[in-house]
């Protein structure tokens, strides 16, 4: 199979890769670029563990061909920190115990960040609807909802 050239930007860094076109975006992120913070939990677009931001939108990277991200700006969990400082949503997750095993957490945080970017003042129900594409088997979600709500309220603004 002839490999094809893919150029994209991940967390602000430009990449040029030759890939088999069947490669999924999550595989490029994890296996080719080596950013393993993004996980995979299902391969049926169900669990949301692989959520990243593509041009600012939350998408499930397990169900997008990497070639479809040609020229795109991709942000993964590793791209949320700014100069070594955790993003407010990350601080809120820690402060509210909004994770347990942590396997869904990267995807959950990316979904939450995209939600807040689009809707800075979500209601509790909007938060719940916003993260319903992400399965967390550990927490029962309520701590996650509290963390997102507190972030929206500005409790973890960067100093």
């Amino acid at each position, binding site marked *: 199979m002839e490999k094809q050239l893919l150029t994209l930007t991940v967390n602000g860094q430009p990449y040029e890769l030759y890939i088999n*076109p069947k490669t999924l975006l999550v595989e490029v992120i994890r296996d080719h670029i080596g950013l393993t913070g993004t996980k995979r939990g299902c391969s049926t*677009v169900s669990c*949301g563990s692989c959520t990243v931001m593509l041009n600012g939108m939350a*998408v499930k990277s397990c169900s997008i061909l990497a070639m479809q991200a040609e020229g795109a700006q991709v942000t993964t969990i590793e791209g949320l920190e700014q100069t070594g400082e955790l993003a407010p949503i990350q601080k809120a997750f820690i402060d509210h115990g909004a994770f347990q095993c942590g396997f869904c957490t990267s995807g959950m945080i990316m979904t939450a960040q995209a939600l807040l970017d689009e809707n800075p003042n979500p209601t509790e129900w909007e938060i719940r609807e916003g993260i*319903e594409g992400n399965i967390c088997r550990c927490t029962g979600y309520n701590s996650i909802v509290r963390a997102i709500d507190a972030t929206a309220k500005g409790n973890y603004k960067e100093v």
Partner: protein
Amino acid sequence: MIHDFTYLKPSSLKEALTMLEEHKDDCKVICGGQSLLIIMRQGLLVTDYLIDIKHIKELDYIQFDAKAGLKIGATTTHHTIETSDVIKKNYPVLVAMENKLASIQVRNWGTIGGNLAHGDPSGDPASVLIALKANIKVGNAKGGRTLTLEDFCVDFFETALEEGEIVLEVQVPTPEAKTGATYQKFNLLESDQGMVAAAAAVTLNGGGKCKDVRVVLGNAGPKPVRIKRVEELLRGKGYDEKLFAEAGKIASEDCEPVTDIHASEEHRRHLLGVLTKRMLKQAWEQAKG
């Protein structure tokens, strides 16, 4: 495991159609691809060429004017539709449907054209759009044709698309005055695929009697099921809860749902009856204004 393919990325609609013409039966079209990749991963679909139309801007639009109605380009995403002001204003039922179609990630990436071309009878848009009397424009290198969405849906995962054709546009007429349209699916998780679903559109005349009505059921057969006996029953009649119950009964008789692990055929018929009754009532009340 996904089998190898050659990935083609046409830069325009014209080029896409030419590629389709060239590769005919050894190619598939990918748009959002979130359903397509699942079946490719399962090995159920193998193709030599995959033609990606996701990025074709020519097909990414929402246009509305009161005369011509609504036109949605095939590569418009679900999230674009649900956040469109003209759709919010003129077709609130589409917004409600899109909002519960799936998770935000899926709505961000998935497209209306891809959804309809997939031909899944449990897909949400088709039932609602048929209730709204939508047409669909498809085309190939030789030209385009427009058919009703009802005729476009043929069978389980089968549409009227012919070799070399893709979906170009969905067209929804402007609803007449005093029209109400509703949609609800039955599921256990908020935005999960529906075990069954029902869409209803009711138009009233000046006297408050039913002028026109459509009931379309989702996941109730191999394609969206339009219940014409209910339309006959209601036309010319006034608001009457007994009639809605009767309509529900007819709907549960006239659909052809299957038994699977989520629900038996009998249970699905029952639910379709309940949803029909409820959607008609809601649509009617909406139409009254």
